[in-house]
């Protein structure tokens, strides 16, 4: 099969991108995805080396294997990009996300929300007599599950950071 046209399987990949932390760098990354019609499921960014002004961006994207290969090649071409690693294919990795979840309820529902939060090993960051703000970390699936459980218990707001990912083992990216 030398030509891409038949529908291909859609894969989900997490990429780590090391970039110079300069004006416009995020726009270049996002512009690449929007300009070519690729998906961004989540994107996180923060400076990780203050001396060298390097930021690490973690992007979760979906696409056919050919599109994933394109995304990696196109990201690598961006001038302020130092390195791109496809965490999904590079080996075992840890993917974590942090969420802040606000729930407003009283009585049995409030007790149930609190109980579930303990079961998910969440922390309570804020409370009033009628509400909680829970802090949860974990893989995105765990947070999805918790959010679904909170929905009938008075879910008000969810803030999620998106995925941060890193390879397991001693090696750097």
């Amino acid at each position, binding site marked *: 099969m*030398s030509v*891409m*046209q038949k529908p291909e399987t859609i894969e989900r990949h997490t990429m780590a991108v090391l970039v110079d932390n300069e004006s*416009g760098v995020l726009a270049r990354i996002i512009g690449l995805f929007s300009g070519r019609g690729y998906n961004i499921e989540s994107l996180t960014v923060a400076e990780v080396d203050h001396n060298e002004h390097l930021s690490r961006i973690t992007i979760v994207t979906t696409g056919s294997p050919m599109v994933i290969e394109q995304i990696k090649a196109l990201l690598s071409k961006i001038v302020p990009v130092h390195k791109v690693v496809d965490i999904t294919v590079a080996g075992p990795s840890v993917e974590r996300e942090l969420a802040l979840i606000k729930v407003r309820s009283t009585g049995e529902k409030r007790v149930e929300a609190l109980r579930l939060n303990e079961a998910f090993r969440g922390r309570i960051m804020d409370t009033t007599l009628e509400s909680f703000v829970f802090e949860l970390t974990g893989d995105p699936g765990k947070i999805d599950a918790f959010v679904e459980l909170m929905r009938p218990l008075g879910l008000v707001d969810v803030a999620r950071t998106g995925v941060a990912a890193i390879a397991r083992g001693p090696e750097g990216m």
Partner: protein
Amino acid sequence: MSQTMTGAEIVLKALKDQGVEVIFGYPGGAVLPIYDEIFKQNAIQHVLVRHEQGAAHAAEGYARSTGKPGVLLVTSGPGATNAVTGLQDALMDSIPIICISGQVGSFLIGTDAFQEADTVGITRPCTKHNWLVKDANDLAKAMHQAFQVATTGRPGPVLVDIPKNVQMSPGVYVPARESRRKSYNPQTRGDLSDIKKAVELIERAERPIFYTGGGVINSGPNATRLLREFARATGFPVTSTLMGLGAYPASDKQWLGMLGMHGSYEANLAMHGCDVMINIGARFDDRITGRLDAFSPGSKKIHIDIDPSSINKTVRADVGIVGDCAVALEDMLRIWKSGGSKSQKNAVKDWWRQIESWRAVDCFRYAPSETTIKPQYALQRLQAAIEKKDFYITTEVGQHQMWAAQFLKFEEPNRWMTSGGLGTMGYGVPAAVGVQMAHPKSLVIDVAGEASFLMTMQEMSTAVQYRLPIKIFILNNERLGMVRQWQQLLHGERYSSSYSEALPDFVKLAEAFGCKGVRAEKPEELDGAIAEMLAYDGPVIFDCLVERHENCFPMIPSGKAHNEMLLGEADTEGAIDAAGAMLV
């Protein structure tokens, strides 16, 4: 040794240190300090264009014809936005140009100031990289990096946006060698094990073809020399994209002509039927491949490209080699020679026999006329008149462009300047200005359509001002010919807005500009008129009135495969279906 100077002085010093001799530009409020520095020196010549789009195309013409980067200088706001078409054109065709744009003072950015535009925002997707320099101390570095990024790896356009106060502020100058960017290191040498695999495929090939592109020309004269050597060593047929014309000599017997939508029958059928395709510096553009799932179905594909994102983008390569064409060709040839490699002589001989039978179809034939000038005939007569001369051709976009690619013969690279990827009508006149600036003694001809010419004809004024004897050879069919052709074939002959009801008198127009005007209406007038055009030492507008309804053949209809080519009018009935119409 670092020196302190104003931002505007830094710009000029950086340009000089980069070896720039000519810049194309248009002044305005936000670049006045740079223009003041230009006034004070003589090393760099400034060419005043008549519209910033012209500056960008002139810089492209200069770059394509010399292999050196082209430079343009524009003001903020409309100056920068007018240059956008040229930047995107250069991005699509991988042409190294450096656009320096003025910006409103940094303290005014974000206030909707007069002639303010978010230039780096607007040009981010149409440049390889761009810079907004907010501190004069960062300016020299940005200028040198701009040249590094534009000219290395896959070449392309870059833009440096400089607020007016930065142009006037003192800053430290740093030389190019201290300005290199750590994160930018394009790969130029292809993986040797892949190159060995490619050589093995080439050795076993029975129906091979070299499919070459603009990358060979961008790579420089070495790539051209090595391509010719490798083609000769193997005896394989060679075809090329529109962008690659001239890398392989048109007079050579291994040359099959251009391939693609309006390429030669033999080139396209050879692509369709080959067993090993050697793609050197081409990118499987949709005008080349036609219907992707029927594109060269039985071949192993070797793809050499300096841009890793070109490989496996639309067509899966069996051997992908990321690297500069010249370096990869050198490695291939070395391995070929040292291993005593030989091509499959007998099989390749059979393959040639097949190709010759396709060639015998004579796909560029057309019905001659004694009463009207056929556009193909006009180009044949032009070719006959210039073939012994040192000539450069630019084109506009449309039917005339395809006919020029079919009927003009290029023996050397960098002689053919055309807007391939973006298809920019209006490219040819300013590009000719840029080419003539670089080659003042050579013959520079813009093969044009009357509609394209009207898009940037104000640059004739530039040509007159700088005594650039460019020749505009207009194949005037009073139609938007390619649009009309598609409307005839696809839209039930409903010619919606493809007829210019009002056209200027091009001879009078030439005279108004201070050029010479020449007109040919009958076939018998043609040779004399062409001779008159060539003899005139100054810019000429040649109004060649041609057959109005001539269609450009052969043609691979949209949505069809290479072996479904139409050779002429007789083949066109119901040739394109609705799905194909969407792909036009």
